[in-house]
């Protein structure tokens, strides 16, 4: 399969924890007419001209698997913040349905909605939205407090959540005494205290400065490895989306333009908009060894000797070659010079002339990390997977991959 893309068929999977169908939000007075026009496929501007209504979200259809990090990304005004608020119905949908574990949130009464919010949906906000009049502990326990959980129990759970995000020592401080990064940890702990199945994170790290943001992303990924929550993460930052997302939904003018894994978005942009969007991305962070490697020419240590090796190098026009066994386990590297000398000296075993000092990388190594290695290496870099040679990378391939209009060879993976 190409690039390990998960099969994705909208609406067919029944395991989804969140499922949105034709979810739309129109702001304004004449929403009925606007929704009708949406159905006819009119654009956001046309509808604004026709009805005076602003389209927030235009028939968004997607589903999110349990344990998945689903990133909704787009520029400001693309409707991503509206979309996340439709998922917990902080904003009333104009049309369409939003299913949380099969129950339609859009048609629930207030009490049912409240229960779903309490049990299943946690939310983290862009500007943290901590209650300034409450201590850190009181902030974290808020979700349980409004469920009338006994004080001792909720304090215990809140403390645990705060310890999880590394704030065990700040229980009795007020939010204003903490730095931005720490405040957002509190926001995260507050959402985790309820132990929800879904975490909605609305630009959760956007208000933090870049270094702290990166730390928080790493930390979120660490936490996610332990917790296996379903996370819907809103961001306008493509780097962030690519870093943490299992899948990314790209939004423009209220519509979802493309849904896919980071690789799919990057390598197979569905249209010009997506392409333009990913143009500026630092490809060195996203592309990995397997994207730029090519098929290696090898000699088999069990069957071939220096003579065959030399012959094959001549055929391929190479100055050296990787040596594998019959199971493609990487054994070493042999240069043309060594093979030629061996032939002269009547050495018939490749083992004696193998170089073991070879540059090796895993298939998931990012381009960024390959740079240094390839710069110093006298031979192509070997790409290995569980000891087996699956490809080689030549210097030119790295540079080529970094120019955004290059065709990355996907068939290798």
């Amino acid at each position, binding site marked *: 399969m190409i690039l390990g893309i998960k099969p994705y068929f909208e609406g067919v999977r029944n395991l989804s924890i969140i499922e949105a169908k034709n979810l739309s939000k129109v702001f304004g007075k004449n929403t009925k007419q606007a929704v009708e026009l949406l159905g006819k496929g009119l654009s956001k501007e046309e509808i604004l001209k026709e009805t005076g209504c602003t389209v927030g979200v235009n028939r968004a259809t997607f589903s999110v698997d349990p344990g998945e990090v689903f990133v909704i990304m787009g520029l400001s005004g693309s409707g991503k913040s509206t979309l996340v*608020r439709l998922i*917990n119905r*902080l904003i009333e949908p104009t049309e369409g349905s939003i299913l949380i574990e099969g129950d339609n949130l859009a048609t629930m009464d207030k009490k049912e909605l*409240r*229960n*779903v*919010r*309490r049990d299943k*949906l*946690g*939310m983290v*906000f*862009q*500007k943290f*939205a901590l*209650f*300034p*009049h409450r201590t850190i502990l009181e902030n974290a326990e*808020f*979700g349980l*407090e*409004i*469920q009338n959980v006994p004080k001792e129990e909720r304090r215990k759970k809140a403390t645990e959540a705060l310890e999880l995000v590394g704030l065990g020592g700040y229980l009795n401080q*007020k939010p204003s005494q903490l730095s931005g990064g720490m405040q957002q940890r509190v926001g995260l702990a*507050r959402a985790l205290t*309820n132990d929800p199945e879904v975490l*909605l994170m609305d630009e959760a790290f956007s208000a933090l400065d870049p270094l702290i943001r990166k730390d928080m992303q790493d930390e979120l990924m660490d936490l996610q490895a332990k917790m296996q929550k379903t996370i819907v993460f809103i961001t306008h930052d493509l780097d962030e989306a690519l870093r943490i997302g299992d899948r990314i939904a790209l939004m423009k003018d209220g519509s979802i333009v493309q849904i896919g894994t980071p690789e799919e978005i990057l390598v197979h942009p569905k249209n010009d908009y997506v392409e333009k969007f990913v143009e500026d991305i630092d490809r060195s962070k996203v592309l990995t060894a397997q994207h730029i490697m090519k098929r290696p020419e090898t000699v088999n240590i069990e069957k071939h000797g220096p003579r065959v090796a030399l012959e094959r190098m001549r055929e391929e026009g190479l100055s050296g070659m990787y040596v594998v066994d019959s199971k493609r386990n990487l054994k070493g590297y042999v240069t043309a010079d060594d093979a030629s000398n061996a032939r002269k000296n009547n050495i018939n075993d490749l083992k004696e002339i193998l170089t073991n000092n070879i540059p090796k990388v895993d298939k998931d190594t990012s381009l960024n990390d390959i740079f240094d290695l390839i710069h110093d290496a006298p031979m192509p870099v070997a790409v290995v997977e569980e000891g087996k040679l699956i490809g080689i990378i030549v210097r030119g391939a790295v540079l080529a991959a970094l120019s955004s209009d290059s065709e990355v060879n996907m068939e290798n993976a």
Partner: protein
Amino acid sequence: MLDNMLEFIPSIPLSEWTTRATDWITDKFAILFDPIKEHFGNFMEFTSEALLAVPAVLIILLVAVISFFITGRKFGLAAFSIVGLWLIYNQGLWEHLMSTFTLVLLASLLSVIIGVPIGILMSKSRIAEAIFTPILDFMQTMPAFVYLIPAVAFFGIGMVPGVFASLIFATPPTVRFTNLGIRQVSKELVEASEAFGSTGAQKLFKVQLPMARATIMAGINQTVMLALSMVVIASMIGAPGLGREVLSALQRAQVGPGFVAGVGIVILAIIIDRITQNMNKDKNA
């Protein structure tokens, strides 16, 4: 000549209607007004007398101690309270001071009890806001003297109509600031409380009111000040206190006594204002 155009109908008997309406209300609601007048009047007298029963020196000290702590352990206001209150005592106005204080206290308490819920209602409902805003404008711009007339009609003379008139005059700031304070609570905070599944009441009491507290307190401070400013006016319908001293000095053209009683009101105003303002700031600052 042109003015004839304006006389297309005879003069509308607006004042007559008002009089009749007031008479009608006085008549029909006597069952309601009379017990209020009697019980509330008794209660006020009781409060006033209870305050007088406490030795003046204790009250002065108590006010000084409260001032000291509420201003964050500073001596300024405490010292001012001691000197100011002693001066009032020294001028033989202590009894009047207690009456005035009772009137201001009760009028303010009632204003808050009535004003805060109306403010909350206005913040929650656009319709309520549309209805109450012009009423509040009316209450605040109508000359305060005008309220005295129905107040007398309903409750006779004395402290009770004084409180009634003060109530109408002094409630609007509390209502307005409560409404404003709740509306100013950041949208994200309200969303946060909703996202975790708060009920309406939980949202109000755990997030909106605590967050709006400073603004509401500023409104209450205004209300107390307005209630105090009604003291002189209310004395025209027989409310006792420092205001009555000012009024009688005015009627007899006696500058001295008028000034002294006036200073008494100023001292009380400053103490109340500083104390309520500092209640607003307190620890979180």
